[in-house]
């Protein structure tokens, strides 16, 4: 049976206007998301990885329609939801749910855990009364919480348990797609493993589609099927997980992988090539390829040409003019 992607995004753009000074005529914008396209199949995890300011969190919020895109298209289960007004969007809201990074600030401290998880059921008219309570108890069990904990308040839970609550709440309405924005970044390693395992189990059980946003390459490698690498509002490389880690083709992907510390002293990177400089401001991104000021393989043309994301090898899309479609993926020669 062939089915279309659960989530499709085409040329998505989100620019935030900056309020200039009283006398300044020229409006500056932050190009948080600057022309991003991808699709995610049912039951698949697309990881979105990048450093702070790359636009990955904004991307998640735009896909959720928590903020309106400047332009581009969002298709949810084949339906264009880009321009739906809140009322018309309502029935589609059930299909896509969000799990936040910070379980401490995303749960209402004055509501009991059971009420929090049951709220979406009532909002969407899916269950009420004892029906709802039964369903909430089931959800609690499914995410590894005791149903008796329904009476407790958020502050009575540990960080990992609160993230389980957040997941239970997202699951309550049987969504197709879950956008998870750094869902384990606030957790300690031992608890992080519990939550990652839960997310993977739930995906396998309900064929959930995940848009999984994280800065952590280890987490990415563990949960994703495919990974998109973002830099200053754009996807610079998009491919399946195994290819990304074994044969990265974009110089920025290569730099990210080389920079991440590996928990194995025998693999200590004594003289690794570290990319120099810092991420430029998204209000004033560099011309041409945004990565060119830091790129060890930069050519003069990189300063002017905006490289499109093209399929260089089957299933591997790269935005770099030094990577020609179909060419043998040889290591690049540094130019500086």
């Amino acid at each position, binding site marked *: 049976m062939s089915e279309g992607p659960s989530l499709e995004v085409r040329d998505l753009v989100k620019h935030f206007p900056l309020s200039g000074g009283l006398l300044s005529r020229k409006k500056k914008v932050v190009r948080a998301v600057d022309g991003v396209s991808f699709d995610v199949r049912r039951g698949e995890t697309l990881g979105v990885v990048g*450093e*702070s300011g790359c636009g990955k969190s904004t991307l998640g919020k735009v896909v959720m329609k928590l903020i309106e895109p400047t332009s581009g298209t969002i298709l949810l289960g084949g339906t264009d939801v880009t321009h739906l007004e809140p009322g018309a969007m309502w029935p589609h809201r059930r299909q896509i749910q969000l799990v936040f990074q910070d379980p401490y600030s995303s749960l209402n401290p004055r509501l009991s855990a059971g009420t929090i998880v049951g709220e979406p059921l009532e909002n969407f008219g899916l269950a009420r009364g004892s029906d709802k309570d039964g369903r909430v108890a089931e959800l609690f069990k499914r995410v590894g919480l005791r149903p008796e904990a329904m009476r407790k308040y958020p502050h009575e839970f*540990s960080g*990992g348990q609160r993230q389980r609550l957040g997941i239970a709440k997202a699951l309550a309405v049987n969504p197709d797609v879950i956008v998870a924005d750094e869902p384990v970044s606030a957790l*300690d*390693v*031992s*608890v*992080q*493993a*519990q939550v*990652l*395992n839960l997310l*993977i189990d739930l995906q396998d059980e309900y064929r959930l589609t995940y848009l999984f946003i994280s*800065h*952590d*390459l*280890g*987490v*990415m*490698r*563990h*949960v994703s099927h495919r990974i998109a690498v973002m830099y200053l509002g754009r996807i610079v490389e998009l491919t399946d997980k*195994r290819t990304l*880690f074994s044969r990265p083709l974009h110089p920025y992907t290569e*730099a*990210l*992988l*080389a*920079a*991440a*510390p*590996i*928990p*194995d*002293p*025998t*693999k*200590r*990177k004594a003289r*690794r090539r*570290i*990319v*120099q400089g*810092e*991420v430029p401001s998204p209000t004033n991104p560099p011309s041409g390829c945004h990565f060119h000021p830091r790129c060890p393989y930069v050519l003069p043309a990189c300063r002017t040409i905006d490289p499109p994301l093209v399929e260089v090898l089957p299933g591997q899309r790269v935005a770099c003019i030094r990577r020609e479609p179909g060419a043998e993926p040889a290591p690049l020669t540094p130019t500086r």
Partner: protein
Amino acid sequence: MTILQVRDLKTQFFTRDGVVRAVDGVSFDLNAGETLGIVGESGCGKSVTALSILRLIPAQAGRIVGGSVTFEGTELTSLSESEMRKVRGHSISMIFQEPMTSLNPVLTVGTQIAENVVQHWGVGWREARDRAREVLELVRLSDPKRRLDEYPHQLSGGMRQRVMIAMALSCDPKVLIADEPTTALDVTIQAQILDLMLELKEKIGAAIIMITHDLGVIAETAQRVIVMYAGRKVEEASVEDLFARPAHPYTRGLMRAIPRLDLDAEEAGRRARLDEIPGIVPVLTQAIPGCAFASRCAFATDRCRVEPPPLFEQGGGAFGAAHSHHDGAGIAHAHDGPTGPHLAACWHTDRVLEAAA
């Protein structure tokens, strides 16, 4: 040669919920010129250990209730506040996680660094400013001369951390304590800062205590490692030995719980499950009679729950410094070789190592 000696350090905080035993009898030695890693999860006491060494525990919140910290033979816990001030930022300095909150926002970078130099070296402002420029060059901050007159908010996160390091190094410290120095930074900037620290350590010969929750950072920087759990030292080993043969169930559990970016976790097309450590850390306001990890440990027996395990020598093995011995506090002595012995506080390390094999 040992320059910093910590013995049976106990630091407690006094809260409405009771007494928090944040550091509960920790001992270790720091040798000149080495990098000692302290690793553990939130609340394990690693940062409080660092703050206790420098006597930076806020008096209204808590205090050192026992043990000793000696730096080059001088007992630090009983120094007067004015004597202690001569140690901080001079012979022992510290780098914090968040440079924005540890730099003074209303002073220029140059003034902040020079202030430290004037204070400790007793030189004039002009000379101190020259020193400030020198250390900014040392940490390879771009355009150091101009940066002297800039304020912290004008710098990026990576640049601020370079300024913090420059300030910490401004008076040639013998010990540099770095508390999660790269945790707030992006991965490419983190790599730059870690490399810088290692390079500078070679150059100036200071010993480093690297405190972090990140086993990757430990593997890349430390020579010797202490693993802390619930305020206690549960394992100590050379970095190679620790990763090759983790002998404490907690260390082993931590290592197996990390999603690895260097390993393929795929098992026959399916994503593998991570090994979880069940449960959560114990509440530190209640006395823990036995091993603090017993409630989460797959190897635990009745004995573990009532009798705290001492640090046992793990000796032997491919990497072991087999000839070493240690005193009751579980201390690596100088003659144990460059990386010291392998110690683990567990009654059942034989079973742990067997399970790993």
